[in-house]
């Protein structure tokens, strides 16, 4: 994998052959990676790829089946308390207390995170302010929009001032405005030195936030690296995608063609031949664009359903 230079800061999270099975199913299958301080790493993968399971291994919510894992140089499960005191988690599923108001939810969590009542009050006010939730402090859970609930989950994960923030699909189901706001907040945290692990199905999110992405499929990390480098390494520069073609046109040798269902993909490092092809296609559903992370993702995880 990545050969870190010897002078680099020690890795915050190290996994070697890390494996977790549920019965016959291998949810995380012998993965290797290092996460360095202040890195933001995005885990991409189809449903069931093992992203959540991997995150849960890191914050000691389940035992590993095999392999090695260390977090802050400590051993998960055995040293759960010392590790998790330095971690904040935003869960995939909402698990806020629905009976409580926004501020109360944060308060009860702050106390069992180890803040005293006074520190908790100050910190909650700061976090609500930072995430633009102050007007909703007294609102009950039901009065919060999806975007507010997510921001509240992020506020909660930050209560203990974590060094490592784990976000499991932080913006799934949110509108673009909320997503962009959340991304801005996360980038700000990163600038302040926080290390961030996130799982997502949104390629744009991964690309906007991550220094590196790891694409997972059926428990394995199938490819990893900086998003732009992955695109450069594994794909041509341009893609022409079209759908609704009765029959794919014959193409010149410098264009690579793929067909999946009713869709055709033409790849080339030069824009001009694709542009020429584009103009001849007898379909309104065609788009010429740069290759992106989604193309890499589909290349490595396939275009079929994974269920």
């Amino acid at each position, binding site marked *: 994998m990545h050969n870190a230079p010897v002078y680099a800061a020690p890795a915050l999270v190290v996994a070697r052959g890390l494996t977790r099975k549920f019965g016959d199913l291998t949810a995380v299958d012998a993965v290797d990676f290092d996460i360095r301080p202040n890195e933001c790493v995005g885990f991409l993968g189809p449903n069931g790829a093992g992203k959540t399971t991997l995150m849960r291994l890191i914050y000691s919510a389940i035992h590993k089946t095999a392999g090695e894992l260390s977090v802050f140089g400590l051993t998960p499960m055995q040293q759960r308390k010392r590790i*998790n005191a330095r971690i904040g988690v935003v*869960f995939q599923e909402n698990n806020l207390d629905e009976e409580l108001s926004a501020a109360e939810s944060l308060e009860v*969590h702050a106390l*069992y*995170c*180890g803040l005293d009542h006074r520190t908790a009050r100050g910190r909650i006010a700061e976090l609500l*302010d930072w995430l633009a939730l102050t007007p909703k402090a007294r609102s009950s859970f039901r009065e919060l929009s999806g975007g507010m609930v997510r921001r509240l989950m992020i506020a909660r994960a930050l209560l*203990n001032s974590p060094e490592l923030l784990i976000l499991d699909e932080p913006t799934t189901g949110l509108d673009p405005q909320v997503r962009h*706001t959340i991304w801005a907040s996360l980038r700000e945290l990163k600038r*302040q030195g926080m290390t961030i692990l996130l799982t997502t199905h949104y390629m744009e999110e991964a690309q906007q936030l991550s220094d590196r992405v790891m694409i997972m499929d059926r428990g394995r990390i199938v490819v990893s690296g900086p998003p732009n480098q992955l695109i450069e390494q594994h794909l041509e520069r341009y893609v022409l995608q079209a759908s609704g073609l009765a029959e794919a046109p014959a193409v010149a040798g410098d264009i690579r063609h793929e067909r999946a269902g009713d869709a055709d993909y033409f790849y080339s490092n030069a824009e001009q031949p694709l542009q020429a092809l584009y103009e001849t296609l007898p379909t309104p559903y065609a788009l010429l664009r740069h290759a992106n992370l989604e193309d890499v993702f589909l290349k490595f995880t396939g275009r079929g359903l994974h269920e």
Partner: protein
Amino acid sequence: MSTNSSLDAAALVRPLRLRTNLLWSLYGVWYRHVRVYCKTLLANATPPVLEPLFFFVAIAYGLGGFVPTSGFDGLPYRSYVAAGMVVSSAMFTGVFETMYGTFVRLVYQKTYAAMLGTHLRIHEMFVGELLFAASKGAVFATVVLLVTMLLGAQPTAWCVLVPLVGFATAYLFACLGLIITSYVKMINNFSFFATGVITPLFYFSGTFFPIRGRSALLDVISVLVPLTAPIELSRALFKAQFTWETLMHLGILFAYGIVLHIFALRRMTARVLR
């Protein structure tokens, strides 16, 4: 909506001194349950207070008319029933809290999923839970004591210790509740335990009539049933009489408590870490 806040993120990432010790962790978990419970206090607490009230009136006044005026076990019948009921109400409070309450937190509210993201040890999560159930038991035992007092039971000064007996009883049965919950897949499964285990305990542990003195076998069984020990302790308070037997019951209570506590934590640890 925007993050145009007056505050920059630097303040948010400054290191904090966290209290991760056992006592604060238990307090934190307990506090969470208390806050959520208080939010829904009226809806939650009315039936557990009213039910013993109706029961006491029906039994102590209704059935009590047919009981010899000397009462049972050296206690007037109203005091006899009151002493049993402070304990049985603590039992119900404790066991139901960690059956239905814990199940809802585990499966629907995902409370433990959220706690798993923090430094809390699994044991701290569930001992905090048991302490909450026990606190509720202490409160309900006290409420029942006061209500039955108004309705003619005659407690002694020793009855100031009733909250303590309520606490211990609820803790013990909350352990039992956790064990049951650790096996339960669907919330409906609880009715089997509620009707099959908890209700018979209530009827056959000497809550409102003496079990012992009928057959030797029954005597042994009744001593070993976990509700008997706290009821005997409560009666000792109501009689202000303490004997070697009182000490034995205290021992039985603690023995049950320790064994069930250990087993409950093992079971719940296995249940949440998966």
